[in-house]
């Protein structure tokens, strides 16, 4: 299952919300959609979800155009918008049951599907509550459950972590990992780049409606010309001395020490990371923990964007 966006353009009067963007992602990939406010992320998501018609360009899911054949594309898409459901007079279970019916899931299968999704998204305990009585985190889960009810191969998630407490964020991250493991193609926009970096296999960085970087994380790193990452070191002792040594080591941009833990901003690939550890050990430091974090999306984002909005 491949999602392809080809030269997509969306204009509102004289404003170009999306300016000829092209990228693709496929099953099993989690793509982060990153950009400042007003960059065109939500507009692109809405076009992909068939809620908006682009001014020009095309987007296909498994060869089906979301612009020309939106009715066919609906079954492929699960969309989690940035606003949450807030109906007064309908319970969580009734809401999910309605969408299961809307996707033509019938009889016993519908009951099993709804219950399965409720269990998967941890909604069993609140299934009889009305939607407007739920907290933001709970509504978020309902929104994800609704998007999953017809088991779509493509998930579009617009700021799903916005406003969630730390526990809900962790739960969301775990949920996304499971979904990615199920082979779904996921496009997720978020401002919490550290969390995206934990789960994303690729990213699209967008600003003023134009793509600045797109591809798998490796490709983006290659495009950036350098690989930023943070390495966490826990020496047995001599933490401050280690920090000073690291600052003199090639590839290290910065090193900070706090409570015996040293954090290093490092530029380099996996090979360079191994070399750095070897250098530290040869210098006579005894290391309890050496943990290179994944690519620092935050740094790449700051490098390539200018913070311009339209």
């Amino acid at each position: 299952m491949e999602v392809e966006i080809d030269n997509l353009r969306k204009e509102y009067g004289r404003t170009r919300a999306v300016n000829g963007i092209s990228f693709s992602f496929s099953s099993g990939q989690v793509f982060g959609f990153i950009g400042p406010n007003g960059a065109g992320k939500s507009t692109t998501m809405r076009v992909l979800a068939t809620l908006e018609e682009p001014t020009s360009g095309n987007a296909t899911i498994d060869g089906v155009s979301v612009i020309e054949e939106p009715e066919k594309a609906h079954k492929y898409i699960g969309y989690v918008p940035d606003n949450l459901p807030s109906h007064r007079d309908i319970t969580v279970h009734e809401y999910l049951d309605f969408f299961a019916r809307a996707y033509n899931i019938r009889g016993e299968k519908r009951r099993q599907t709804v219950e399965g999704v409720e269990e998967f998204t941890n909604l069993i305990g609140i299934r009889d509550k009305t939607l407007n009585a739920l907290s933001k985190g709970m509504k978020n889960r309902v929104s994800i459950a609704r998007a999953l009810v017809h088991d779509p191969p493509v998930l579009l998630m617009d700021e799903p972590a916005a406003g969630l407490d730390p526990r809900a964020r962790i739960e969301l991250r775990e949920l996304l990992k499971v979904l990615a493991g199920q082979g779904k193609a996921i496009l997720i926009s978020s401002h919490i780049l550290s969390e995206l970096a934990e789960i994303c296999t690729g990213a699209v960085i967008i600003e003023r409606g134009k793509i600045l970087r797109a591809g798998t994380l490796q490709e983006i790193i290659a495009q950036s010309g350098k690989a930023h990452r943070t390495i966490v070191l826990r020496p047995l002792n001599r933490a401050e001395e280690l920090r000073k040594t690291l600052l003199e080591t090639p590839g290290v941009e910065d090193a900070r020490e706090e409570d015996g833990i040293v954090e290093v901003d490092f530029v380099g690939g996996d090979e360079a990371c191994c070399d750095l550890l070897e250098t530290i050990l040869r210098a006579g430091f005894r290391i309890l923990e050496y943990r290179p974090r994944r690519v620092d999306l935050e740094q790449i984002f700051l490098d390539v964007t200018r913070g311009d909005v339209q």
Partner: protein
Amino acid sequence: MTEFFSHLGDRINPIVVKETRQAVNSRLVAGFLLLFLSVQLVVMLLMMTTREMPDQDEIDLRAGRDVFTFVQGILLGTCLILIPAMTGVRLAIERSDVNVDLLFISSLTPRAVLLGKLVAAGALALLIFSACAPFMTFAYVMRGLDVPTIVVVLTADYLAVMTVTMLALFIASVPANRGLRVLLGFFGFVGMCYLGAGLLALTTAFLRGWSSLDMNAWEFWVSCAGLLALILGVNGLLFVWSVALISPAAANRALPVRIYTLGFWLAAAIGFGIWSLYLRRPEPMLGWGLISCVLFSLQFIIAICERDQWGARVARRIPRQLILRMLVFFFYSGAAGGFAFGAFGAAISISGLAIWFAVIPSPLRGLTEQQPVLVLGLVLAYTYCYSLTAAVIRRLLAKSSFPPGYTWVIGVILVGCGCALPYIVRFALFEHSRYGYPDELTFLYLTNPFVMIIEAVRYTETHLLYTIAFLSAWGLTVTMVNLPWFVKQIQKFQPPEVPEAVVGAEGAGE
């Protein structure tokens, strides 16, 4: 049995299930229902206690009828306000840009969505009507009215509620911002008030025997059937328009609308034609003329708001055969085809009406002069001219990304200017102490359809000649200006070229 109900439950439109569940859980609905029942109870008690009783030997034969008149008035008022407002507002919110309900990205078709909303509204109306049943039974027991009368009145009330609900759904489907939608809603509310007041007056007259309607005559029931068909036809038209409005832009949205319009127009022609032949008088055909005038005037306005281009999906369905292609040009989405459809329909309607009046002479003096035909013709001609002029202006504004969907706004502004400017010019340049429209100043008012249509028919032939000459010149000019665009649209109306490899494969297959 459980399996049967489960199967039945699966077959019910999901929207009906959801909306009914919401209505049952809704405090608003429950509150309205309780208020409605309380008001009915209070009104009935007041009527019973304050009513002057006849002598002991006499029976009050009006008590039941009077109580029923009040009860059905309250019922009609409650349903006309609550149900259309609830249904329309809910759909408008679901279609709002800022509050995506995602109903429209499920597997449900736009037709199923609207039908579900309509059926759910109908079920809610039935619920409220049935809540009223005990009071109506009580009214019946009190004498003064019979069961057929109750059935006719309640059917009329129910139809009115469903028609206004359909109108509310249509307004909610119009792609407009909140302000414009509120304005449309306000006009809808005013229309609803008129309809409700009119129906209430009619049913009161019917209940009290003030009207000449005789339920024992077969003409009464035939008229009822005709009226029912007309109401259903109008509701159907609103329905297909609403479906088209919420269908994806890439779909051939105009096709069902134009097929329905054609069907409605033909059915009306047959119905009114039979009535006219039965009476041996041409006047009933004016009903068809009026329907045609409304249908094709609206068709002109809709057509100028359509896009010039059609997407690949529509293009794929354009026939390769020339004759068939020319025929479907009038029915497929696209501004040019839509306008041609309206122009042909208008021309055939006015010609047909004129011929009908010539063939079947009217005993009424005024009507023999074909005045009504003239009025309908002038209305259509003015709509044609203003619409095409608006289309030209919109194309001139195309570079500023003026959306085609709002071409009607240009049309409204043009009509506004055409109506107001004559008065301003007269006030500024000519004497303004006299009222009326003197012959020497007729030329000033030519752009004002309201003045000219009335004056042309009411006064001398000079006014009529001026109007016809002006409209002919204007119509011809805008037609000529639009002609290159129209020809270009016909030329572009082609199916996509088949790649050679596919042609080869098809040939090999044969």
